[in-house]
């Protein structure tokens, strides 16, 4: 997917020599075979910027939440605290309906973190000239691998050996058939998570670029609406799939 210069390129250009030397030291990339250039560090800088923004917003919202004497009463208008309540509360209700209240509370950090990071990263795609962190396979593969390692870790921690025995299917004489299929479908999960998010974001950016190059005045408006929808839907899909994987891995067998 083609990349272009953004506002962050000016930030990177100040460190251009060091970045070029480091990019050459990394070597060739797996997919293309081309070595990275000094502009290839841009999605990483964008992801760090999103992480910093989310951290600052979270600290501000939490400070406002603690300082209130009666935090039960919400504010009148849409402040930062009520926005976080609506956004994270929706995913928390989703997790509670799937996993039960106690498990949802224990596993919510990774669910909420993926929701907020993916949402703020995607929203930057709607601002003109800002880089989109999640339209790069490196960033989304990082998110998906974190989710993969975590849900396997939770499954092994809660169920132990039963987690792997459950993958072998209902009967012992079918295990030679079922276990490879289940293992393959388990290992394909981070790949589809990351590639789906990357493709949706970069195709949306690409189509918006094409239509803006046609006529930059009125025609992009329905595409910006589509872009807003895609941002929200992809956040929902990523977080929902994370929740489903965690709830499948940690559910108890003895019913």
């Amino acid at each position, binding site marked *: *997917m083609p990349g272009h210069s953004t506002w962050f390129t000016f930030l990177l250009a100040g460190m251009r020599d060091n970045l070029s030397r480091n990019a050459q030291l990394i070597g060739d990339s797996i997919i293309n075979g081309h070595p990275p250039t000094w502009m290839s560090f841009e999605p990483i800088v964008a992801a760090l910027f999103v992480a910093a923004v989310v951290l600052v917003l979270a600290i501000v919202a939490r400070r406002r939440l603690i300082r209130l004497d009666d935090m039960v009463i919400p504010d009148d208008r849409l402040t930062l605290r009520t926005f976080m309540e609506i956004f994270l509360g929706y995913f928390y209700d*989703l997790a509670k309906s799937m996993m039960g209240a106690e498990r949802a509370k224990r596993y919510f950090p990774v669910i909420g973190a993926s929701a907020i990071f993916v949402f703020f990263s995607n929203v930057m795609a709607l601002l003109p000239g800002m880089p989109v962190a999640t339209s790069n396979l490196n960033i989304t593969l990082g998110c998906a691998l974190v989710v993969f390692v975590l849900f396997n870790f939770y499954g092994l921690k809660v169920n132990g050996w039963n987690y792997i025995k459950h993958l072998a299917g209902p009967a012992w004489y079918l295990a030679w058939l079922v276990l490879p299929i289940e293992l393959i479908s388990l290992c394909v999960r981070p790949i*589809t998570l990351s*590639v*789906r998010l990357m*493709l*949706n974001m970069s*195709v949306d950016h690409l189509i918006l670029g094409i239509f803006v190059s046609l006529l930059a005045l009125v025609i992009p408006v329905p595409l910006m609406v589509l872009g807003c929808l895609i941002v929200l*839907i*992809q956040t*929902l*899909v990523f977080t*929902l799939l994370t929740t489903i994987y965690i709830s499948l891995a940690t559910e108890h067998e003895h019913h």
Partner: protein
Amino acid sequence: MIKNKLALVVAPFVALLSSTAFAQEAAGGGGANKFDAQAMAALGAGLAIGLAVLGGGTGQGRAAAAALEGISRNPGAAGRIQTPMILGLALIESLVLFAFAIAFLLQRNIGG
């Protein structure tokens, strides 16, 4: 009598079409080069995205139709039906986007 007239009208078309088949055999013996590969890549890219959108559109239409029928039967459950519908639509769309990625990678090799 009518059957003979039909054969009389169709026969020139058959003769013209068969001559094009002879022409293809003569021109195809030039040896494969990279322009042939680029032509095949272009054809493959177009077919990939077309067939993918065909399947994806059909699948998404059926998913949305089932969701709309569910909402019409039970309007109170509209919120609970909407979330799985959006999830299903996004998962079907991701398959279409996989095919778009392949078409894009094929299309990058054209125009050497």
